[in-house]
């Protein structure tokens, strides 16, 4: 790589972050939207370029300001970061390009430049987490992205978003502070903040007690941020009452980035250095993820608001990802990482469809969306396909990751059978909660007092791009499978 190419890792964060400051100054809504979309699209292009470089080869390292590691901050991009960066920038670009009509109906025009600025900061923060190799840097980016996402969620017209976002702020800050305590304890014992260096130096620490404590603080703190059951209570309300476009973006990537740090820390820093870490990791996370899958799906079946249904379904889907990772096998990790990618596709498409439908309904409760299929058949078909992908029907992306998950469980013998049973039951529950919505939308009575609006074409195009991605990666899963396999090799520290 030469010229500007060499600086792409830094530009991945710098482009959205600098544009955010610029967007605030643009008083006109249209200009702010164009600038934000352009920055997001550029971030996506950079992510694609970085993915192509990192995939199958050596990880990219970039020394900020030419300070060598471990003294300076090192950016580190491998296949795992690439998966996340693709999701973040892809979801952001699609929602931004398609979402302006939906946003116009929910956020006052003069406040939109601030909204777009917060959006870009969230993108910069989330990308920053994925590319940096420095533990404290991760904390800073985590807080940048969290603060920005509080603003994105609270920006909507529904007042119920406010208590929801307050709860998210409290729990998110506690999670981040736990993480900070953990990093502090590791720094106390090793004197380094560089993740790769940390791993080597912990091996030479005599008294491991602070490190065990740090492992506990970091795992619990990040589990809080990633909404791993039972620390998920902030998620459903925040997703339900946020502006629809925010939900489409956040549901696709926000919690998954936290899982990314969690896996990075637990697999690379702690796994090789702490006795019994594997047993503890599996012992806590495997049962919790199974409970998450069941409880999340059951509550999703009982919800009356379409957005709540899929918010609780997210709790269950995070369970799938954690389930795969908690097995600590190559197959399990591959399945977990694959599900990060495929769930982002399915949920992103679903919430984009909801954003379209919501424009023609008074609310997203079941009684208000009746008969919507006749009014907007194209959107409805997209919604159904995304729903099938969420359930895991063959031919969609969701099937691929569930298949890998089941294959990984089979390696476990009897326990595996139990896990597979739970996966199947939960998939049936997903059939039920998706069908309930489809039934009402297709055969219900149309709400006579519904607002009569023209459906936004860009939003439908964005939705269909996401839907086609679901189908494409269902038939041609090479890209995510390769990335996920490489990730599991990196995390388990074996050469592929």
């Amino acid at each position: 790589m030469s010229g500007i190419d060499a600086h792409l890792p830094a530009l991945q964060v710098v482009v959205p972050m600098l544009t955010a400051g610029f967007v605030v100054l643009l008083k006109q809504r249209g200009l702010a939207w164009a600038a934000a979309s352009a920055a997001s699209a550029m971030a996506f292009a950079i992510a694609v370029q970085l993915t192509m470089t990192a995939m199958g080869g050596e990880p990219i390292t970039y020394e900020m300001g030419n300070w060598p590691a471990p003294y300076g901050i090192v950016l580190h991009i491998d296949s795992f970061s690439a998966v996340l960066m693709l999701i973040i920038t892809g979801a952001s670009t699609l929602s931004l390009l398609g979402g302006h009509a939906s946003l116009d109906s929910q956020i006052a025009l003069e406040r939109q430049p601030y909204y777009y600025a917060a959006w870009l900061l969230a993108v910069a923060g989330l990308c920053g987490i994925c590319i940096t190799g420095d533990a404290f840097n991760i904390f800073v980016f985590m807080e940048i992205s969290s603060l920005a996402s509080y603003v994105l969620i609270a920006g909507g017209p529904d007042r119920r978003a406010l208590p929801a976002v307050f709860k998210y702020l409290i729990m998110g800050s506690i999670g981040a502070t736990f993480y900070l305590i953990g990093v502090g304890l590791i720094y106390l014992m090793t004197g380094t903040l560089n993740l790769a260096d940390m791993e080597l130096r912990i091996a030479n620490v005599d008294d491991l007690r602070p490190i065990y404590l740090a492992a506990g603080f970091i795992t619990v703190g990040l589990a809080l941020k990633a909404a791993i059951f039972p620390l998920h209570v902030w998620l459903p309300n925040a997703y339900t009452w946020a502006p629809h476009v925010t939900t489409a973006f956040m549901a696709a990537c926000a919690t998954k980035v936290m899982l990314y740090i969690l896996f990075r820390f637990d697999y690379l820093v702690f796994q090789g250095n702490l006795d019994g870490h594997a047993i503890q990791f599996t012992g806590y996370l495997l049962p919790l993820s199974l409970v998450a899958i069941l409880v999340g799906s059951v509550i999703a079946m009982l919800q009356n608001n379409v957005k709540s249904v899929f918010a609780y379904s997210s709790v269950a889907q995070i369970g799938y990802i954690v389930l795969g990772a908690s097995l600590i096998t190559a197959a399990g990790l591959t399945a977990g990482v694959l599900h990060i990618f495929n769930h982002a596709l399915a949920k992103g498409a679903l919430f984009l469809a909801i954003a379209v439908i919501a424009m023609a309904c008074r609310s997203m409760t079941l009684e208000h969306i009746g008969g919507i299929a006749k009014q907007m058949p194209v959107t409805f078909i997209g919604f159904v396909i995304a729903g099938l992908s969420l359930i895991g029907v063959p031919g969609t992306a969701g099937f691929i990751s569930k298949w890998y998950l089941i294959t990984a469980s089979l390696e476990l013998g009897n326990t595996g059978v139990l896990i597979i049973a739970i996966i199947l039951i939960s998939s049936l529950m997903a059939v039920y909660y998706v069908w309930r919505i489809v039934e009402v939308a297709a055969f219900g009575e149309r709400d006579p007092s519904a607002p009569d609006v023209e459906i936004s074409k860009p939003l439908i195009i964005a939705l269909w791009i996401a839907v086609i991605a679901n189908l494409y990666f269902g038939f041609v899963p090479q890209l995510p499978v390769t990335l996920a396999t490489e990730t599991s090799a990196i995390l388990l520290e074996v050469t592929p």
Partner: protein
Amino acid sequence: MDILGLFNYWVFAILLMIGFYAVLAKKNLVKKLIGLALFQSAVFLLYITVGKVEGGTAPIFSATAEGDLFSNPLPQVLILTAIVVGISVTALGLGIVVRIKEEYGSIEEDEILEMDQQ
């Protein structure tokens, strides 16, 4: 056990717990935020304590100060950043509380929950 020698660490733990208790137990949203701020401040103390070298001075290089023992400046730099983060969280939190007061007319958690359930 050298309790006095670990004085700062004890204060860290106690402050952390007081803050955490306030966040969990208080129903008033502003009091929750005060607890959160205390909770975060406790961590600042942990980092600053880690960086202190006994008998060390400020890490400023000068020709006369050769062979001097310096405290580690890095935790202080980190905490400077963390303080900024903490302030931003508190400010944003208070901003949300103001909006909640405007919309609900109350900043008591249970009253807001009740209004939402209606």
